[in-house]
């Protein structure tokens, strides 16, 4: 017996160290046995066949299903990478491994009691065939041979015949009344060598009722994928640093992975440039778009707000000829007619620019002064007055107005307005031929002329006032400063080359 105890301790020790990394094995504290959580190996691209209510459940969880969409009651297929594990719990009898098999239970969320019982019998058989330390063989079998042994292959059909259809059913019914003393959930196993007197349910389908099955499977699959992703080292293709998945993000559509630091910079640069449509996977020619939630998790809150607003702007402007009725109680989408919109529901005719009653050719009345007055009033108001104003204008709108007023001066100092659409534009770099990010017109940064689409650079040639000033005023540029105006091309070029070569020397 002493020998058996030693063998047991050694087996637990070996199992613990073999499965340490996977974290799938735990020895009981008193060394009387242990538990395995065995992920069944699935073929790649494995799907589960869904029928009836399972289809709706999966859809409600946002899972994209495969299968023809035209026939409403047909089966659909759900891609899974991982299924919830089979839990094997074993206890050593005193005379294991010399004489008796360990007693054990198998429980699983997606295998039926019938299927689990077949597995139990197979484990018994494995013990009978070659006695001795058997646990590793059992775990390995469950991992790699469960599917083939149960004759399951993708698409996997779940055996749900024994599951209660609803939670209520479960609490009231004792089960479908099994043949050999089965409960609906567990089954008695004739475990060779165990105390025959106390029947034990050793196969358990550990799920309350059918409605819980799909959500449980989906959640496990997601969690497991995330767990594995987080533990897997990746080399970020942008900074070339090795980082664990937990410091990375993955683009949903393409599966490309980059580190969070790089994507934070990537997104921030794009948002600052007003290029919100381009929050794409950086892979060459890859069209996967970052999810707003991913952007939000990475960039500074102000930048996210900017991105969010620009995105909304963009989608509205892409709708082109649609505006919303300005009446708060109405807000019907209305088709533009020039500067006017006429609501088909409430009949209001309104100016699409200032959102007040249509005023024909008169300019919009909402002036800068009015905004300023509103902002001043609000900032100096008592708490009560403030809440009244907030009710009337909306807290968010008021904050926006104040922000606009405060930054107005900054904008005036640092930006110029697009001569075509009036959007304020700041120039960081590059030549004086500007492209407005909003209306995409070309204009000259020096004289504000809208430049011809066909040849915008013609403006900087010939004898016009901006001739040869394409790069005038560029920071660090030694070209075309105001004084250089009279110099001709060749002279400037020599000055230029001279400077370059000073760097080299």
């Amino acid at each position, binding site marked *: 017996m002493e020998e058996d105890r030693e063998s047991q301790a050694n087996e637990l020790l070996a199992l613990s160290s073999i499965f340490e990394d996977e974290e799938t094995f735990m020895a009981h504290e008193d060394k009387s046995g242990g538990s395995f959580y065995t992920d069944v190996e699935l073929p790649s691209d494995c799907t589960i066949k869904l029928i009836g209510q399972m289809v709706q459940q999966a859809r409600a969880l946002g899972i994209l299903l495969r299968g023809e969409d035209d026939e409403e009651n047909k089966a659909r297929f759900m891609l899974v990478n991982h299924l919830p594990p089979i839990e094997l719990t074993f206890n050593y009898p005193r005379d294991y491994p010399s004489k008796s098999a360990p007693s054990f239970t198998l429980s699983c969320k997606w295998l039926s009691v019938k299927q689990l019982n077949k597995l139990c019998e197979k484990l018994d058989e494995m013990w009978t065939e070659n006695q001795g330390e058997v646990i590793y063989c059992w775990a390995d079998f469950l991992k790699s041979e469960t599917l083939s042994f149960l004759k399951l292959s993708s698409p996997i059909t779940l055996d749900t015949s024994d599951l209660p259809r609803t939670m209520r059913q479960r609490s009231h019914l004792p089960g479908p009344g099994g043949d050999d003393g089965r409960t609906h959930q567990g089954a008695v196993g004739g475990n060779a060598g165990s105390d025959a007197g106390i029947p034990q349910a050793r196969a358990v389908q550990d799920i309350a009722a059918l409605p819980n099955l799909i959500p449980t499977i989906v959640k496990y699959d997601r969690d497991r994928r995330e767990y594995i992703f987080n533990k897997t080292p990746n080399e970020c293709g942008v*900074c*070339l640093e090795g980082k664990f998945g937990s410091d990375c993000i993955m683009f949903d559509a393409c599966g490309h992975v980059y580190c969070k630091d790089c994507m934070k910079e990537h997104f921030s*640069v794009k948002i600052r440039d007003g290029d919100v449509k381009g929050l*794409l996977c950086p892979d060459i020619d890859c069209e996967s778009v970052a999810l707003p939630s991913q952007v939000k998790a990475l960039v500074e809150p102000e930048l996210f707000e900017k991105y969010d607003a620009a995105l909304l702007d963009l989608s509205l402007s892409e709708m082109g000829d649609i505006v919303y009725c300005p009446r708060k109680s109405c807000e019907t989408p209305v088709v533009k007619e020039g500067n006017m919109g006429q609501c088909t529901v409430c009949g209001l005719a309104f100016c699409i620019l200032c959102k007040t009653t249509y005023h024909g050719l008169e300019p919009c009345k909402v002036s800068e002064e009015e905004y300023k007055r509103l902002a001043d009033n609000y900032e100096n108001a008592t708490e009560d007055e403030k809440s009244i104003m907030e009710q009337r204008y909306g807290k968010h709108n008021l904050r926006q107005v104040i922000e606009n007023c405060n930054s107005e001066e900054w904008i005036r100092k640092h930006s110029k307005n697009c001569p075509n659409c009036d959007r304020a534009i700041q120039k960081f770099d590059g030549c004086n031929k500007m492209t407005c990010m909003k209306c995409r017109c070309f204009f000259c940064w020096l004289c504000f002329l809208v430049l011809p689409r066909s040849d915008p650079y013609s403006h900087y040639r010939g004898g016009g006032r901006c001739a040869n000033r394409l790069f005038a005023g560029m920071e660090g540029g030694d070209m075309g400063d105001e004084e250089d105006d009279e110099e001709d091309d060749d002279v400037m*070029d020599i000055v230029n080359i001279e400077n370059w070569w000073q*760097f080299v020397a």
Partner: protein
Amino acid sequence: MSSPPPNKKRIDADIIKLIEAKREVTILRGLNEFLVKFYGPKGTAYEGGVWKVRVDLPDKYPYKSPSIGFLNKIYHPNIDEASGTVCLDVINQAWTPLYDLSNIFEQFLPQLLSYPNPIDPLNGDAAALFLHKPEDYQKKIREYIQKYATEEVLEEQENPSSSSESSMSDFSEDETEGMEL
């Protein structure tokens, strides 16, 4: 004083890649400014020409694209004749942080020289010639190469034979033409 910038490893790798591809790289200042020797792509009128291309990496590299300038003159619709600047737009539109400097020199510049975009030109004369008098266009490119973009001209500029300090500004188009060693 300060720790290396987060993009240092990436910039190092970019430069090493250029050097491994047998590019001649001269570091100008820090790791953000350098010169790369660029040879005109084979099978184009630029074949045989050699240019010193200045690369400026912005602080936000590789999230922002590098600025590229030709130091010795080149005749091309999308390159400013006077300053050698390659239009920012052209690089920006295609740029993603996964591109690196070798992409610029192995793909982007050869592509640009082989297929100019005359629709949005920086050098209108070149664009007009390219569209309407392709033979003159090619001729002009070769003339420019003879004047400004041969190994001899580059060498002459680097080690001026006349020792006077003002030699650079004495360069004129006529003189450079006969300046072979």
